[in-house]
C-alpha cells in the first residue's frame, strides 16, 4: 500500500519554498498500490522550457496524467513540479482522477532520483480537464470538477520577490479561470509566455482582463453564477473567479 502522507511529502518537500502551494486533496488516503517505475520513454520532451536559471516559473495546464508526466520531465531539467490538483476522488466522478493519482504514485521514483535543489524554480501542475465532464451530466453523477482561483498559486509579488521574471503557460489554450490568474501576473510586471503542445518553442502571451475581474464577491459569484448542476458542482458555465473565499461559516 502507498503511504499517501509520505508520498505528498516527497512531492512537497519541506525544503522547497514552493511546496506550500501543493494541494493535498488527491493524496488523501486511497486504496493505493505500490508505485511501479515509469518506463523510460514515458516522459515527454520538454525542450520548450527555458533554462532553469532563467528566472521562469512554469504552469503546466495539460490533461490529467500528462500534466504530471510533463512535470516529471521538467524535474529532470531541474524544475520543482508542484501538484495543484484540487478535485476530489469519488465514486462516479465526472472527472477520472485515477490516472493522475497513478502518475503521482509511479512518478515518485523519477522525482527521488533527481535530488532537486531547494531553490529549484516551480512547475505548477494543473489538470486542464478540471471543468470538463467525461460524459453528459446526469442525476446521480458526482461532480468533482473544479476551478482554479488566484489564491491557489503564489501572488505576483511573491514570485517577483523570489526572483521570478517570467511565467510560462504550457497549455493548448488559456482557460477563463487561468486568465484571472495570469492577468494579475501581467499587471504586476511579470512577462508571460506560452508553449503550446505540438508547436515549437515559446511565444509571448498577452492576456486581456476577463469579465468580472477582481469582483469583490469572486468565489461566491462563481457558485451563484454556476447554477449548481444535478451533482451540486459546477453547472458547466465557465466561472469567473475573483478574490474572496466561498466558505460558509
Amino acid at each position: 500500500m502507498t503511504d499517501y502522507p509520505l508520498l505528498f511529502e516527497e512531492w512537497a518537500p519541506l525544503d522547497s519554498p514552493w511546496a506550500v502551494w501543493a494541494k493535498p486533496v488527491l493524496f488523501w488516503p486511497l486504496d493505493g498500490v505500490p508505485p511501479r517505475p515509469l518506463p523510460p520513454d514515458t516522459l515527454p520532451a520538454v525542450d520548450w522550457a527555458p533554462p532553469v536559471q532563467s528566472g521562469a516559473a512554469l504552469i503546466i495546464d495539460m490533461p490529467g496524467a500528462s500534466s504530471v508526466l510533463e512535470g516529471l520531465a521538467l524535474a529532470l531539467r531541474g524544475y520543482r513540479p508542484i501538484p495543484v490538483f484540487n478535485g476530489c476522488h469519488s465514486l462516479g466522478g465526472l472527472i477520472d482522477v485515477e490516472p493522475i493519482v497513478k502518475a503521482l504514485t509511479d512518478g515518485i521514483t523519477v522525482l527521488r532520483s533527481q535530488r532537486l535543489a531547494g531553490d529549484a524554480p516551480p512547475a505548477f501542475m494543473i489538470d486542464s480537464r478540471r471543468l470538463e465532464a467525461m460524459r453528459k451530466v446526469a442525476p446521480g453523477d458526482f461532480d468533482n470538477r473544479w476551478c482554479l482561483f488566484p489564491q491557489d498559486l503564489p501572488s505576483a509579488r511573491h514570485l517577483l520577490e523570489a526572483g521570478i521574471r517570467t511565467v510560462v503557460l504550457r497549455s493548448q489554450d488559456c482557460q477563463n479561470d487561468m486568465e484571472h490568474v495570469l492577468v494579475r501576473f501581467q499587471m504586476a510586471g511579470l512577462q508571460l509566455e506560452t508553449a503550446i503542445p505540438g508547436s515549437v518553442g515559446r511565444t509571448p502571451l498577452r492576456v486581456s482582463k476577463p469579465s468580472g475581474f477582481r469582483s469583490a464577491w469572486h468565489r461566491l459569484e462563481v457558485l451563484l453564477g454556476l447554477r449548481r448542476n444535478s451533482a451540486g458542482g459546477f453547472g458547466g458555465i465557465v466561472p469567473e473567479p475573483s478574490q474572496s473565499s466561498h466558505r460558509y461559516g
Partner: protein
Amino acid sequence: MSRNEPCAAGARLHPIPPRHFAEHRRRVIFSAFKWDPQVGDTCTVAEHVVVLRRETAHRLHRLAESLADETVMVEEALRSRPELHNGLGLPAPLVGALRDAGCSVGRGRRHVRVMRFDFHPTTAGEWVVSEVNSDVPGGFAEASILPGLVAPFVPHAEPFGPDVGTLMAEQLCAGAVGRGAIGLVHATSYADDRQVMAFLAQRLREAGRLSVLIAPDHVRWSGGARCIARGQEGELAAVVRFFPAEWLHHLPRVSEWRGYFSDAVASCNHASAVLTQSKRVPLVWERLGVPLVWWPQLLPETSEPSLRRILDGWLLKPALGRVGQGITVPETTTPRERRQAALSALLHRRAWVAQRRFASCPLPAAEGDRHLCIGVFTVNGRAAGFYGRMSKRPRIDEQAQDVAVLVEREKPSQPGVSA
C-alpha cells in the same frame, strides 16, 4: 501587555517552536483534514496556539449555551411569524418554502441543532459576539483535532470540553431512524467543503454508522429521504447539510430542494435554521415577544442601514454574508468598496444591516499583533470545543489563520491547605 501575559479578556498566544512548525503543518493537513492550508501567500495554519484562562473558557461555554437557548427561542418565534421573513433579507423562493413548510417543521428532537457563536476579545477586557453561524457552521475538524496536535508544545495547557465532531456523531446516531446511511451533503466541487464532510464521515464511522458523501441534489424526498448518487443509492437515515440554505433554490426544480424544509428525515441543520442565520434578526427581536438577556448584551448595537449610521462609522454587513465577506471594516476595504457597499445598503436595505463597531483587542506576537475570534460550537444546546481563528487585520475572513485553542490546566491544590 507582554507576549506571555493574557489580555484582559483572558487569552494569550503561545508560539509553536519554529523547528517543529513544518512538520506540524503536515500533520494538520493529514490528521486534521486541512486540505486548504495555503490561501495565496498566506499559510492558514497558525504558528501559535491560543491559551485561555480556565475561567474564561468556562465563561465562553456558558455564554454560548445561553445564546443557543435564546437563538432556538427566536427561531421558534420566527417560524410562527412568516410576515417577518421578508424583512430578514431571505431570497423570495426561501420565504415561500418556509411558508409552505409551516411552523411546526424543524422542531422535533431527532433533528440535531449545531451552531457556532463567534466571540472576540475587546479592548475593554470583555468578549463580544459578532454573529452566530446558525445554518452551516464550519471548523468542526479544526476545533476537534487541532488542540490535541498542539498540546505537546504548550506546558500547563490542555484541550477543553467535549469535541464537536464526536458530539455531533453521537447526536446524529441517536436521531437517525432506520439502518440507512447518513447523507453528508456538500458542494462536491470544493475540496474545502469535502474536507469538512470527510471528517464527519470518520467520526460517524467511529460511532458505528455508515455515511455517504453526496451533493445537495442527490437526495430525493418522497416518503423519507433517498440517496440517488451513483453507486450509493439507498434510504437515508439522516441528512447533514453543509450547503447554505439560501443557495438551495439555485438547484434545478427536479432536485426537490424544498425537501430540505420538510421533516421527512432527521437533519443537521434543518433548513429553517436559515431564519436565524440572517444578521437582520436583531431588527425584529422586539416584535417576537421573546425575553432575550444575552444577545442584547453581547452583540454590538445593530440597526437598519442609514446614511447617518454610515457617516457615524458603523459597519455594514450583508444580511447573509459569511466568513467576513462584504463587511466594511476600513482597514480591510478600499474607499471604493465602502462606497459601493454604502450605495447598495441604502438602495437595498433588506440585504444589509448596520452594526456599531467594537474595538478588537489584538494579542501580541513576535511577528506582530493578531486579532482573535473564538468560535464556540453548541450541539443541541451543549457547548463543545473552540474554533480559533486569527488575523493581522481586524476582520476574520478567508485570509485568517486557524489557530488551536487550549486552556490552562487547573493548578493542583496544595496539600494540607483546605478551601
